[in-house]
């Protein structure tokens, strides 16, 4: 309730736009802003209102507020009776109500009408996912990727599903595919290194180290990558399989990273006392 206090409609519109463009989920807040501020001011929004209605209906479905979603979708249907995009919103509503068979019927007609409609194909995969049929969803995703190879979202989704199944090497492959598209994205390097670190083993740890370093190189303030580098280097340092040369390098990195983390922590909080304690408990034995 804090959020919507004294919120003007133009401010609310800007907040929702920001969330929409930055892919923030925040469904509860979206619905709250909609109900308290924007619902009565919808006519003031001009052509923006349609995207906004779409955003609100998805958010409402996400918090199981079928009533809110239904009224938004209803407005959209009146405006665009033949739009496939609105139709996939109807499908999402059916999904939220767990009427999966009806949803699938709709999706099949959409795909028949428009072969290249990726949203409908993605929704079909989501239905499998919602039914917790992860292996089937993975199979469908690989089929999808054979047709639409450059769809980065799907590579990412496939990566997440492989992780859910514990298939780390395949998840790592998906990540590799992703940073071929975005070599300058530090988060992808960090994520890839996280996966490799989870896999364990000397070779993977070496590779994880270089990707953590790459992430730090691209963004010096990536704390997670710094901690990742600290942990991988500590493991390499303590492992019996590493050569003495590499051990020396690893311990150098440990010293450097600890110093850097302390410095960043100091900048943020002003003291490092508690960090020392926390660092001690970080060790994986």
């Amino acid at each position, binding site marked *: 309730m804090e959020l919507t206090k004294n919120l003007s409609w133009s401010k609310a519109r800007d907040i929702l736009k920001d969330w929409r463009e930055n892919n923030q989920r925040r469904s509860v807040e979206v619905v709250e802003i909609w109900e308290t501020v924007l619902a009565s001011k919808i006519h003031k929004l001009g052509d923006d209102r349609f995207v906004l209605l779409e955003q609100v209906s998805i958010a409402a479905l*996400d918090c199981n507020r079928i*009533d809110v979603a239904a009224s938004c979708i209803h407005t959209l249907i009146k405006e665009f009776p033949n739009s496939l995009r609105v139709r996939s919103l109807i499908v999402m509503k059916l999904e939220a109500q767990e009427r999966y068979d009806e949803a699938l019927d709709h999706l099949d007609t959409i795909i028949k009408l428009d072969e290249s409609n990726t949203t409908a194909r993605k929704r079909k995969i989501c239905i499998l996912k*919602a039914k917790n049929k992860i292996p089937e969803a993975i199979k469908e995703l690989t089929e999808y990727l054979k047709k639409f190879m450059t769809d980065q979202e799907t590579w990412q989704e496939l990566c997440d599903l492989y992780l859910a199944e514990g298939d780390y090497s395949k998840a790592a492959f998906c990540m590799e595919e992703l940073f071929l598209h975005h070599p300058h994205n530090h988060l992808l390097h960090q994520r890839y290194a996280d996966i490799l670190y989870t896999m364990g083993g000397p070779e993977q740890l070496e590779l994880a180290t270089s990707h953590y370093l790459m992430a730090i190189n691209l963004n010096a303030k990536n704390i997670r990558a710094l901690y990742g580098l600290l942990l991988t280097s500590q493991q390499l340092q303590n492992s019996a399989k590493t050569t003495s040369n590499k051990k020396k390098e690893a311990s150098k990195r440990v010293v450097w990273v600890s110093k850097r983390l302390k410095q960043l922590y100091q900048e943020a909080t002003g003291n490092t006392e508690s960090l020392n304690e926390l660092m001690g408990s970080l060790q994986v034995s």
Partner: protein
Amino acid sequence: MGSTGFHKVVFIIGICFLVHAAVSAAQRKLTEQEFTSLSLDIVVQGILSLIACMYAIIYMAGDLKEIRATEELENKSWETLRNIPSYYIFSHRGRTLSPAYDPTSVGKSLIDE
């Protein structure tokens, strides 16, 4: 690089000369019967005043920023990057918090199979 009084003066003088050059060129075109080309002094005045304006405005426009490939990604977190709207599923535990949630109406599709 802060803007100083000197740069502001240079800018104002530059603009004045530039406008003057333009006005005299227009005048010449109106008065001369057979207009062929601009005289050298107007051309030189125009170019010099333009250079002066450019020089001053670089200093007045404020500090220049470094262009970095990762600038926009710097403040993003994995949480926003991993969130993919096309792959949302709605049958998650969060829905039980909704006032409209009816525990008897959902979950049937899973039990039926």
